[in-house]
């Protein structure tokens, strides 16, 4: 093991976290908007589904993804029929798995921020003839921006620290699926403690910096229950 391998793992991890965060913001924001405003009977089951990755051990999630995305699984059969091939052991597979794994960390802060806005600003915008899209894009989203930033940072950081899922479906392929956490784990398992310490230090410093940034942004709030700017506090 040398610096080159570690650098490659660090770069791949950052790439994975960027892609996953962008995709999650794109899918998670509409989902959070819907969850914050709906009174549908599907709200509770869907919220529970979104929160499940918080509860399931990552290796268990990874194991079932390996089964589902394999040639005998439902997802695997679908991706093969679509000509995509199989997802395990590929970067695309890691992206899909990481999105599932980090979903609650992105949806929940945004949902909380949307909920904190309340109905009044949106009603006011409606009386000024703002359409549904304008109310969302020009009123709700700016008011919830801190929630969105928190979501992006948490989603990014959580993906960087992801381990169990990648371990199960990755196959440890340099440049495709070998990320910091699995590389660090392999150093520890191989009793290469100096290399492990070095990588752990990088991961620790990075995570601390990210969390410090989030708390600077929000001196009083907790991470997940993030009230929106200007929203009246109960």
């Amino acid at each position, binding site marked *: 093991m040398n610096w080159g391998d570690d650098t490659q793992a660090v770069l791949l991890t950052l790439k994975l976290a960027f892609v996953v965060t962008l995709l999650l913001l794109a899918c998670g924001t509409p989902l959070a908007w819907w969850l914050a405003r709906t009174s549908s009977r599907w709200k509770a089951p869907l919220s529970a589904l979104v929160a499940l990755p918080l509860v399931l051990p990552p290796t268990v999630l990874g*194991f079932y993804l*390996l*089964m589902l*995305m*394999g*040639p*005998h699984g439902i997802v*695997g059969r679908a991706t093969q029929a679509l000509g995509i091939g*199989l997802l*395990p*052991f590929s970067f695309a597979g890691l992206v899909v798995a990481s999105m599932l794994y980090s979903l609650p960390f992105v949806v929940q802060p945004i949902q909380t921020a949307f909920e904190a806005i309340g109905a009044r600003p949106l009603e006011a915008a409606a009386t000024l003839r703002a359409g549904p899209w304008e109310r969302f894009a020009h009123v709700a989203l700016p008011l919830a921006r801190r929630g969105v930033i928190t979501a992006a940072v948490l989603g990014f950081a959580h993906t960087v620290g992801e381990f169990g899922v990648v*371990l*199960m479906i990755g*196959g*440890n*392929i340099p440049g495709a699926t070998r990320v910091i956490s*699995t590389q660090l*784990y*392999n150093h*520890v*398992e*191989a*009793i290469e403690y100096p290399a492990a310490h070095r990588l752990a230090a990088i991961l620790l410093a990075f995570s601390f910096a990210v969390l410090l940034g989030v708390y600077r942004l929000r001196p009083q709030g907790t991470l997940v229950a993030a009230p929106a700017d200007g929203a009246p506090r109960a």
Partner: protein
Amino acid sequence: MTLEPIRGLRALALAALALLAVRARADEVQVAVAANFSAAAQRIATQFEKDTGHVVKLSVGATGKFYAQIEAGAPFDVLLAADQATPGKLVAEGRALPATLHTYATGKLVLWSADPALVDGQGEVLKSGRWKHLSVADARLAPYGQAARQALASLGLAQAVQARIVTAENIGQALQFVQSGNAELGFVALGQVQPPDGSKPAGSMWVVPATLYSPIRQDAVVIAGTQVAKAATQFVDYLASAKAREVIKACGYGW
């Protein structure tokens, strides 16, 4: 101070000692066992408990992890490793009892596929394009991974298959990749695919000739500082008994 409480204490201490003496006959031995050997270890432990009255508690895991835990003072009495290096290292560091160190099993490497028609009796399939992923355990972490790499090198195929190898963290995961069909074939331990009743394993396999890789010797050792040295040593010795060896052989190992 009166004599009475002291006498009382002495009686209590004697009673405690007597209790300890009774308990010493049925000791509890904490055994850390390498994942590949867990099925065999379970059967041997049950037999050992029946024969001696001691209780055996098994913890299944990776040898490298056990090493780190023993370094940190984990309360294991015996280590059944997947290799020779780790127990040897523990002995060299004074963390294990040298007199108890011995090879309890020798592993056999097989090339296995869940597909009954894929792997032939000579391993020729490795040269073919009929598969996309070959599952191999990490050679740095798993002795079977190291053996698989040696076998590939002996066959002159190391370069040819390199790009199609998926690396599993341990031999258990190497099997999982193949069982789930994500890798068409992989190098695993015979002990993993051999049913203990001696019947034919599912899928198709090639038992890799032992001449293609250095022997996978798995060593056992008693950890220094154990409170139950006698029972622990008894368990380690028991692994070489005829009864234990019958199980070891049935599970796909030599010794």
